[in-house]
């Protein structure tokens, strides 16, 4: 019998995804196993990945774990935000196949179904390992706060800057997460030149046009020495010493900039963050001590951060009958942040 909670991948097809799920589990000190319905072992060997995935049957999963929590956006799924899992020691968190989700027989065994609210339920929004990291983060904390509800949550959404990604897959997955959580623009300091230019853009736009894709996100290329004038910048990373992620106010609106750094390629202590804003705040994604030895993935930590920002930004308050408000005429000084970049579509980021 297992003495630690376990992340279980049900029907995972891609061995690289499976390996990243393993790394996600390691981050939080969880075990990791798979129910191999799609020849995962064969793909693992084909890709010459070291070791072997731990594979369990449905019966073994049910025997060794209690409760089983299914993590997908099916009918009856409750929000992850605010979900209290209870004791973790034998809990199994199940994530499903990249395209088809969790199999019906395992869903029926699950005590609870949880989901992260997304922009679209019809689109496969988050990379499976990134979504697992979000669930692991909140469950490892024993739950967390509920998602805010606001009259106009868009007003609380900060701007986003992605800095120093060393790999286009990690960056692409992060961009996918940002779009899934509702951002329609992100600034990208492409220091490793892993994203802008090349054939990827033309192919992406072609596919998006063919699929009549919606859910776009504008990617604005930002130079690494560019000066901005935000009121506040929150630099989010694994570097200890900052304000814990769930305690930082990350929903101060468009005058706030949230920076997600690739901890493998950026030393936040050597950067001049004052070039971005009047005030600088360091924010730490606090991991449990037991998860201190793990393989780092930018997409996992950045998606956890994006999920927390999305929780604080909130969702629109359900419409209730209300008194009509009188019209207002605002005198605002509007500015345009640079918009020179490219548009990508959530539907076209599914490969990341």
């Amino acid at each position, binding site marked *: 019998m297992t003495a630690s909670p376990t992340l279980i991948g049900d029907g995972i097809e891609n061995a690289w995804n499976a390996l990243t799920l393993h790394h996600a589990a390691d981050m939080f000190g969880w075990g990791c196993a798979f129910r191999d319905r799609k020849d995962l072992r064969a793909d693992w060997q084909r890709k010459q990945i070291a070791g072997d995935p731990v594979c369990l049957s449905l019966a073994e999963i049910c025997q060794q774990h209690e409760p089983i929590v299914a993590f997908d956006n099916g009918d009856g799924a409750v929000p992850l935000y605010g979900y209290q899992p209870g004791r973790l020691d034998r809990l199994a968190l199940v994530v499903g196949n990249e395209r088809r989700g969790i199999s019906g027989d395992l869903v029926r065994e699950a005590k609870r179904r949880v989901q992260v609210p997304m922009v679209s339920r019809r689109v496969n929004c988050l990379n499976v390992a990134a979504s697992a990291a979000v669930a692991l983060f909140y469950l490892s904390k024993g739950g967390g706060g509920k998602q805010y509800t606001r009259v106009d949550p868009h*007003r*609380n959404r900060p701007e986003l800057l992605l800095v120093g990604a060393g790999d286009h897959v990690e960056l692409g997955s992060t961009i996918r997460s940002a779009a899934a959580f509702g951002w329609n623009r992100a600034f990208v300091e492409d220091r490793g030149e892993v994203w802008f230019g090349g054939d990827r853009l033309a192919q992406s736009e072609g596919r998006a046009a063919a699929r009549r894709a919606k859910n776009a996100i504008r990617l604005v290329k*930002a*130079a690494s020495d*560019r*000066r*901005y*004038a*935000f*009121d506040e910048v929150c630099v989010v990373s694994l570097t200890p010493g900052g304000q814990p992620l769930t305690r930082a106010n990350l929903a*101060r*609106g*468009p*005058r706030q900039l949230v920076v997600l750094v690739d901890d493998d390629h950026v030393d936040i202590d050597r950067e001049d963050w004052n070039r971005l804003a*009047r005030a600088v705040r360091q924010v730490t994604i606090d991991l449990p001590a037991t998860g201190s030895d793990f393989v780092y993935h930018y997409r996992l930590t950045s998606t956890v951060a994006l999920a927390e920002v999305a929780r604080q930004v909130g969702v629109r308050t359900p419409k209730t009958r209300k008194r009509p408000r*009188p*019209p*207002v*005429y*605002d*005198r*605002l*000084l*509007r*500015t*345009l*942040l*640079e918009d020179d970049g490219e548009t990508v579509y959530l539907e076209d980021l599914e490969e990341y």
Partner: protein
Amino acid sequence: MESPEAEAVDSWSLPPIVETPPRPGYHHPATRVEIAEVLAFFGEEVVYGLRSIELRQADPRSSGLQLGRLVIPGQIVLYEQRPSPWTLPGHLEGDEAQRLEIAGAQLEPLEAATIIEWPGDTLKDFMLIEVLMHEVGHHLLQHHKGKRLERIARTRDHELFADAMARRCREVYLDHGGSFR
């Protein structure tokens, strides 16, 4: 003994001018006394139907820098501002830069920000003319077209009228030697 201007104002009432203290690092560029002077200067016609003028703290979540607001019917709000110079993320939209320069601001566009310097009393005068009298323009159009609690013109037309009001007020202000006294 009261001045002739004060006696004239006494025969009609200025709306109440209510001030909320600004946040640390902010100030109200135009004081309540200065606002009362401007309204008295332009006369009863611009004040008729106004219910209140309020000096308030700004909402940091606003999509743009908040200057002022008209809440129908007849409530005008002027927002606190940072002292000059202002540093705003991005570049000013449309003809906003030109309007600020006409009001006396000095603009310095950077790569991804704009610095706006307000020398002397230009910021105060901007708030009194291009903001307060602009909102008065909205109020006059709304109020004299039937006082309904709904928009009585397209937003674009409303803005054109309010802009014209502010422009005319600045002309009068300059013709009067740059003073409201």
